[in-house]
């Protein structure tokens, strides 16, 4: 089973460069390993700047590199935080984070397993993102968070679309794992023009 | 006679014949050539002793270790210049790898902070 939401594009042209990080999501306490989201996001962003050389005589190259680094670091961190929140805690299916570089855009993808309960929650967030104006959704989510002690979700994805002008899409697929059970995987794809 | 970059610096203090190393050096092979040349220039001044202060050199890759090793080996053959290396116990690579320099130059003095 495969389901696509939003702007999800399978690769048709080969990327110029890519970097993929895969890791086990479970055993260390979440609180302690939370730090690794930021660490991984910053690493990815810093790694990418290598492919955007700065020319000292051309201030715009520095600005472009700084902006891109900021955007990739923010977006990758949000995607990883989401994958930690939504991944299936009963499974040790690795979480992967991938960046692919093309001539005019870059793609960030995070894949994680998702439990049936989280699946419904996640798809309702996607539904809101697709059907409600960003401005309205933003105010609505802040108000909602004020009511229930800050437990909002979905603001991360919203800011990715609205603040960073990125395209976003999702792929849900069910795969057979070694165990007798099936596992649902979700891939969130963000496309950013450069 | 100094080499200063964003990641590392090497500064020669003529008065004390001390070379101060600082930062993280993980250069790509031949990139060490200017540094090897600097060391050779200092050796050509024929001071009676040279001190390498590595206490602030936090990282060095094996190409860097080779570059230092070659210099130490050269001084050992020369026999006219004494060599003192100042190290820090807090820096892992020094704890692990500096002892090998002694093999290249038995008279090498090593001082730990």
């Amino acid at each position, binding site marked *: 089973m495969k389901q696509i939401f939003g702007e999800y594009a399978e690769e048709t042209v080969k990327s110029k460069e890519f970097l993929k990080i895969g890791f086990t999501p479970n055993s260390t306490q*979440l*609180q302690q390993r*939370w730090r690794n*989201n*930021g660490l991984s996001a910053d690493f990815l962003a810093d790694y990418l700047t290598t492919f955007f050389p700065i020319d000292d005589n051309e201030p715009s190259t520095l600005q472009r590199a*700084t*902006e891109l*680094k*900021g*955007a990739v*670091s*923010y977006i990758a*961190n*949000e995607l990883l*935080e989401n994958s930690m*929140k939504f991944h299936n805690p009963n499974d040790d299916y690795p979480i992967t984070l991938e960046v692919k570089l093309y001539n005019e855009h870059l793609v960030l993808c995070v894949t994680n397993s998702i439990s049936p309960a989280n699946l419904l929650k996640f798809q309702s967030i996607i539904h809101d993102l697709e059907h409600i104006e960003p*401005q309205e959704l*933003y*105010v609505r*989510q*802040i*108000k909602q*968070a*004020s009511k229930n*002690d*800050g*437990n*909002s979700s979905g*603001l*991360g994805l*919203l*800011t990715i679309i*609205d*603040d*960073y002008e990125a395209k976003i899409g999702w792929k849900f697929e069910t795969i057979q794992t070694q165990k007798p059970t099936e596992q649902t995987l979700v891939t969130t794809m963000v496309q950013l023009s450069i | 006679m100094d080499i200063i970059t964003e990641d590392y610096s090497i500064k020669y203090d003529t008065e004390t014949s001390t070379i101060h190393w600082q930062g993280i050096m993980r250069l790509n092979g031949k990139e060490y050539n200017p540094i090897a040349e600097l060391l050779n220039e200092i050796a050509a001044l024929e001071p009676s002793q040279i001190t390498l202060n590595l206490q602030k050199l936090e990282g060095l890759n094996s190409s860097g270790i080779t570059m230092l090793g070659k210099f130490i080996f050269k001084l050992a053959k020369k026999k006219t210049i004494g060599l003192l290396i100042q190290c820090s116990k807090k820096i892992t690579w020094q704890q692990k790898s500096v002892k090998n320099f002694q093999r290249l130059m038995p008279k090498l003095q090593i001082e730990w902070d």
Partner: protein
Amino acid sequence: MKIIDKEYSVIYDQATNTVYWSGIMRLNGGQAYEPILQLLNKIAALEPAKITMNLRDLKALNSSGISMLGRFIFSIDRKKNIQLLLLGAKAVPWQQKWAKNFQRLMPALQFEWV
């Protein structure tokens, strides 16, 4: 009143009614931000005429943190008796991104950029 951590700090200067933010804040969800929101609410409870938030040294903030700041701004907007000024830095890429959204929560919100 201040919160100081290895990665970030939030410090209130009573003399100037300024909250100084610095570092990298990427805490785990709304609950982890609760102590910071409480600090902000305590400051608001003092009813100063104006609160300044100096965010120029805040290098990164995740969406949970943006949400927390948004909640605070929204609560000040409803109060109507406190002015709010945000000091931002153009050099920190994320800061310009949130500005327009915060304005939606509080139309009277003021900004100053360097």
